[in-house]
């Protein structure tokens, strides 16, 4: 196995609200390896984005949030770093691409200048050097006529172009880890495919780890090597793409996969859906968090929280039913 670049260990992110602390992320543990594409999937509100923002410590720690656990990157626990060093990691070592590219670009700067800005924060480059490098980046992310585009404002570009610019901004300093937070949600399908191709291409060429956060299982199946499924701030299943898609163990993962519309087969049937909705953070069930919506839930599921257990070399799952069955077989 390749070297680990990021180790998230028992990450808890709690938001301070008027009703007290709310645990948005509860004990999330995973690793990201060099050069891999790791997919993180789940419904809205399951904590995918909070996880990624917590890694960069983007939330206001004085007022908004309380972190615990450890995030180790290059041998350092990010939570123990002073803000100044944290800033040096952001954008230089760990970069992030946001969902909506238009609102992620500063409207009063030309796109070229935004890349220059990202370079000048971390590198001691002259204005001219940075500009040349920015043009090079624009060209690398597949923007035609980069010299001309350099001087255009974000609103003058199409959605796909903007996302390409965002990727160029994020990759300008050659980070070791790229966090892509739903990078294709605001785009149409053709552009989506192009952007994903670009991310995969960059991932290979720069040998950086990519954390792809999405709710689009098709994208994950096509691009990622490993997948983490999250539900209500916890990891419910982790495994290789083959594990997750060919042999999903957790009822929630199965539900998600069945809910994807299929091109072939019987179309008269209604699409599968997972009944119920994600509970509020203030009303988290005491046992298995998925139990109220799970068709297989037993008395034990409602009372006792299952642990994330290894069921094969690459696969882990958080479900009583699966681990009980395995116990019987053995």
């Amino acid at each position: 196995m390749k070297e680990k670049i990021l180790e998230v260990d028992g990450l808890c992110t709690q938001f301070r609200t008027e009703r007290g602390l709310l645990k948005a992320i509860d004990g999330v543990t995973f690793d990201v390896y060099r050069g891999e594409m790791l997919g993180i999937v789940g419904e809205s509100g399951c904590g995918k984005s909070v996880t990624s923002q917590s890694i960069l410590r983007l939330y206001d720690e004085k007022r908004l949030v309380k972190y615990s656990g450890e995030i180790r990157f290059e041998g350092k626990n990010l939570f123990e770093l002073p803000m100044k060093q944290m800033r040096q990691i952001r954008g230089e070592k760990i970069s992030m691409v946001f969902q909506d590219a238009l609102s992620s670009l500063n409207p009063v700067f030309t796109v070229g200048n935004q890349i220059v800005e990202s370079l000048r924060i971390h590198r001691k480059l002259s204005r001219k050097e940075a500009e040349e490098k920015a043009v090079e980046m624009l060209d690398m992310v597949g923007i035609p006529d980069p010299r001309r585009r350099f001087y255009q404002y974000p609103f003058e570009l199409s959605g796909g172009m903007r996302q390409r610019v965002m990727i160029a901004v994020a990759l300008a300093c050659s980070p070791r880890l790229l966090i892509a937070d739903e990078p294709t949600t605001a785009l149409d399908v053709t552009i989506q495919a192009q952007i994903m191709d670009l991310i995969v291409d960059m991932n290979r060429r720069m040998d950086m780890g990519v954390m792809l956060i999405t709710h689009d299982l098709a994208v994950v199946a096509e691009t990622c090597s490993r997948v983490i499924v999250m539900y209500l701030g916890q990891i419910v299943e982790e495994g290789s793409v083959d594990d997750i898609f060919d042999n999903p163990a957790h009822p929630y993962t199965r539900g998600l996969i069945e809910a994807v519309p299929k091109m072939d087969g019987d179309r008269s049937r209604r699409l599968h859906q997972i009944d119920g909705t994600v509970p509020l953070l203030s009303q988290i069930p005491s046992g298995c968090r998925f139990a109220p919506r799970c068709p297989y839930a037993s008395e034990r599921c409602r009372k006792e929280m299952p642990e994330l257990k290894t069921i094969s070399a690459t696969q882990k799952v958080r479900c009583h039913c699966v681990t009980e069955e395995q116990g019987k077989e053995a």
Partner: protein
Amino acid sequence: MRDAVLKTDLHGSFSGGAEQQVDMEQLRKSLKKEQRQIRIRKFTKNKASVFGLIVVCLMIVLAVGAPLICRYDPLELDTVNRLKGCSAEHWFGTDTMGRDVFARVLYGARISLTVGFSVGISAGVLGMIMGLYASTNKIADNILMRICDGLKAIPSTLLAITMMTVLKADIKNVIISLIVVNVPSMARIARSQAIVVKEQTYMEAMRGLGASRSRMLWKHMAPNILSPVIVQVTFVFASSIITEAALSFLGAGVPAPAPSWGNILNEGKGVIYSAWWMVLFPGIFTVLTVLGLNLLGDGVRDFLDPMSS
């Protein structure tokens, strides 16, 4: 071209020839020019703001060129020719002490424009600093905004008069008290805009790129709140001219012999039935300048908006 770049090492520096740099420089110039032309076209489409611009420019020319245009000194007494009407000799007539009203009005424009300009710019800069700072720091926000509330609670002319009675009456103190009067509204505008900008995803994205707090504040937030502030500056410019005239008229502004528009009006009010020219001309100049500035302000808004191209 693309293949060539793909082959170069990503971490390595770019080795573009001098030829390409010249190309880039030219491209920048032509694009900048193009954008400027679009903005100017947009500005000139609005006839009212063009009129405002012409009036304001004319005023500036008259004020700056006053010594060249006028044949008389604005302070020169000529007791023989008191209260003479308009003539080829004295275009706007003479006042109660025989001074040339035309010269006094033109020199008065110097005072008015100096006051308006200094107040507009200083209040704009101070208000922006206060507004930006308030948007990032809750304690500073509370202190600054409560002070602003307090200042806004007092009618602005009254506040300016009070300050002028405490301070010595001269042009410097007129400017200072008008800045104090105008900063609160400026800070409010800057702050409300800054709060909107602060929550935008691109500020979050900048943080994600490792930008420091001050860099985000001054380099990324400031330009985004600039255009409403600049528009407000033109309005403060205009309103300071009026307030300065009011202060001088009431005797609380620039002290008497100096040719401020308010002073001329004040001296003319006693003889309004016999010497209408003493009131009419400074009045027209004040109205025109203020009108011109307000019309210009609307045009500036269109000009500054990057989306307008």
